[in-house]
C-alpha cells in the first residue's frame, strides 16, 4: 500500500513570492505521482504528473514539481505566485504496475495575499 504526507496544512504567502508545497510518499513499489488543485467551489484539476523520464515536471499555471526518489518526495514549486493561485493543492500517488487506485494526501491550502 502507498501513502502520501503533505506536511503543511496551510501555506500563507505574499503575491509574487516563490512558494514550495511539500509532499512525501511511502510505497514499497515504484509509483506515479500527481498534483491536483481545487479552486473554491470547484472540482479537482490535474496540475501535473510524473510517470517516468525527467524528474522535473512542468505543469499548468507555471507550476513545476521535482521527483526525488531517494527522498521519496514530489514537492510542488512556483517562482512567483498570483492571488488567483489561492486554492487547495493535493498530492496523489499511484502504483505503476497492475491496477492501482489514486491515494491522496490531506491537502495544502495555499493562501496568497496582496
Amino acid at each position, binding site marked *: 500500500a502507498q501513502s502520501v504526507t503533505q506536511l503543511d496544512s496551510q501555506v500563507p504567502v505574499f503575491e509574487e513570492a516563490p512558494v514550495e508545497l511539500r509532499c512525501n510518499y511511502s510505497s514499497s513499489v515504484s509509483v506515479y505521482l500527481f498534483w491536483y488543485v481545487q479552486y473554491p467551489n470547484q*472540482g*479537482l484539476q*490535474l496540475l501535473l504528473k510524473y510517470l517516468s523520464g525527467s524528474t522535473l515536471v512542468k505543469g499548468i499555471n507555471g507550476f513545476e514539481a521535482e521527483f526525488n526518489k531517494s527522498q521519496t518526495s514530489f514537492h510542488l514549486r512556483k517562482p512567483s505566485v498570483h492571488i488567483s493561485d489561492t486554492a487547495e493543492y493535493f498530492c496523489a500517488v499511484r*502504483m*505503476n504496475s497492475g*491496477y492501482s*487506485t489514486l*491515494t*491522496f494526501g490531506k491537502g495544502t491550502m495555499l493562501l496568497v495575499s496582496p
Partner: protein
Amino acid sequence: EPEVTQTPSHQVTQMGQEVILRCVPISNHLYFYWYRQILGQKVEFLVSFYNNEISEKSEIFDDQFSVERPDGSNFTLKIRSTKLEDSAMYFCASSGQGINTGELFFGEGSRLTVL
C-alpha cells in the same frame, strides 16, 4: 472541453434516508470512480468501476453503498441508509487511458449533508 458533471451539487437528507448521487463521466471514458472527502480530511477512494462491474473498493464502501451504470451515460452512487458520518463531498471521476497512467478527470463534487 469535455468534463465530468455531477448532480446534485448539494443535498441535505435525514439520517436513514436513501440518497443517489449522479455523475455523467466523459463520454469516451471507460473507467469510473467515486471518492469522498469528509470536511477537513483527505480525499478517500471509495470504488472503481469498469466493464459494468466493480474493479476495486475500499473498506469504506460497505453494504450500504452501491454503484450502477444504468445507461450509457450515467454513473450513480447510492447510499441505502445514510448515517451522520456519511456527510462529505463526493467526487466522481473518469479516465479513458490505461488505468495505470491515465489522468483521472474529476467532477465538481456533490456535497451531502446528513442531519
